[in-house]
């Protein structure tokens, strides 16, 4: 397996005046290159801490985080790691540096010291990839939440990273903005082969993932393909999360004695299963 990021026995604690809050302890996980990973967890499960560890924004107290074999503890490789692993945060307002869309997207590549022509090419490509090219001269503060977040994503992909970490990118958006962002991220993964690590508490966003990790109290309690994960309805609920409504419905039907699979997330498949069920019972 070709892993882009590997965490080996990582521990991390936030220091406070009276005591230390240990968020992660002996935490190990790897992310495979080119995959779409979703990390689920409720508040305080340690998922944001995990995000910040991935590109060396915070350093582990013990253990190592390595990106392409380089440890984040090594200050020398800090720049290379940040270049390889881009990060998108929750609040779109607080990550835009410039008042004009294209100038904001150019901020990252400008820091990399590329030639002006190369920066221009990357900015245009990045804006086209997130479908914001037509608005490149607009003022950033006049955009909708979803558009701002797409500009933030463009700012990251203009640096041409190998991996993007998104820390609850849709938490402050309306359903429309949420869909825009998730569709964009999916497209980047499928078309450009960028590794995606999406951290969220919305189950629906896990539907298209290659791999889903469920975190609770600083531990991974489930790890696998989305349909595998969501069929463990009771386990997910015990982590303080809810399962997608489709899975929940099928789970309830199954516990009521109907013969259905509950490892389905897509609403279309769920609808066809239920219509088959109705057809069969009518025939009887």
């Amino acid at each position: 397996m070709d892993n882009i990021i590997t965490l080996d026995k990582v521990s991390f604690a936030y220091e406070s005046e009276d005591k230390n809050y240990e968020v992660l302890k002996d935490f190990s996980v790897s992310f495979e290159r080119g995959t779409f990973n979703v990390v689920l967890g409720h508040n305080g499960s340690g998922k944001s801490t995990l995000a910040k560890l991935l590109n060396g924004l915070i350093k582990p107290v013990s253990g190592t985080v390595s990106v392409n074999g380089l440890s984040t503890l090594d200050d020398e490789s800090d720049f290379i790691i940040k270049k390889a692993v881009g990060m998108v945060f929750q609040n779109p307002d607080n990550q835009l540096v410039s008042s004009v869309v294209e100038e904001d997207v150019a901020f990252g590549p400008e820091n990399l010291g590329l030639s002006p022509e190369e920066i221009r090419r990357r900015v245009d490509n990045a804006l086209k990839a997130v479908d914001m090219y037509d608005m490149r001269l607009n003022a950033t503060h006049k955009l909708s939440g979803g558009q701002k977040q797409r500009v933030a994503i463009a700012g990251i992909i203009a640096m041409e990273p190998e991996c993007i970490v998104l820390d609850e990118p849709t938490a402050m958006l309306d359903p429309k903005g949420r869909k825009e962002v998730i569709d964009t991220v999916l497209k980047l993964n499928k078309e450009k082969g960028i590794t995606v690590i999406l951290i969220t508490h919305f189950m629906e966003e896990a539907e298209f993932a290659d791999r889903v990790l469920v975190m609770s109290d600083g531990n991974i309690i489930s790890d696998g393909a989305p349909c595998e994960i969501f069929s463990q309805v009771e386990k997910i609920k015990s982590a303080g999360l809810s399962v997608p409504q489709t899975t929940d419905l099928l789970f309830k039907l199954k516990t009521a004695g109907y013969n259905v699979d509950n490892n389905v997330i897509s609403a279309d498949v769920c609808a066809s299963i239920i219509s088959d069920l109705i057809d069969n019972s009518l025939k009887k």
Partner: protein
Amino acid sequence: MLNDITFGQYFVANSLIHRLDPRCKLLYLVYMIVLVFLAQNVVSLASVALLSLTIMLLTRIPIRLYLKSIKVVIPIIIFTAVLNMFYSSAEAAPLVSFWIFKIYSSGLIRAGFMAVRVLLLILLSSVLTYTTTPNDLTDAIERVLSPLKFIGLGRAIHTMSMMMTIALRFIPTLIDETNKIMNAQKARGAELDSGGIVKKVKALLPILIPLLISSVRRAYELAEAMECRCYNGGKGRVRMKQLHMKARDYASFLVISAFLGVIIISNIYVKIGVV
């Protein structure tokens, strides 16, 4: 109240003034300010005013936006004018005289000149900020000041221009936030518009404190986001937009310089309405 602040904002339009090199525009502002104060008589001041008006029309930005930028500074203009009215030498009989105040005709002219000068200063600065993106502007300031790097101030200049970029970027965000906090406090029964000045100032406290706290949090998050985008204090940074002087930049310089000639000549020969 807060929506009236247009000063320092950029307006998208496609005009000759928008396309001028930002470095030139910055230097022209300084140049025009010098012209405004060099104008010593009615003819020269009128020609500077005419030039300023032409520049404003060339920007293709609605005049009402310029009027908005003046609205905020009207008290300052009136204050300056009134102060200048009493400041004149007694070469003839006073027009009006009461107690220790005496108003001479030269004082009135001086007051008028001062009001027009301050007005032009505001309008011309508005032209610069309305037609230049904040990034271009800070970029221009950085480049115009760049010779200072030879005396070891390179880092300081970059930091200053970065701070200006971020400040300008967050003005609209913080205005929105202030409005939200004001509404939230009003919903809790805060009376922001009533009472005397002391009460009004006190009522601002529950608005300023949440605003300050949220700004600090924003600053922290922005710093993290900038760090993630490989920002390390401007070392090895290359700008996407490189600036090149074009024919229009040289042409505009000639036009403004011609006006300098007009003003010098009229200062020498025209003797009406001299300050």
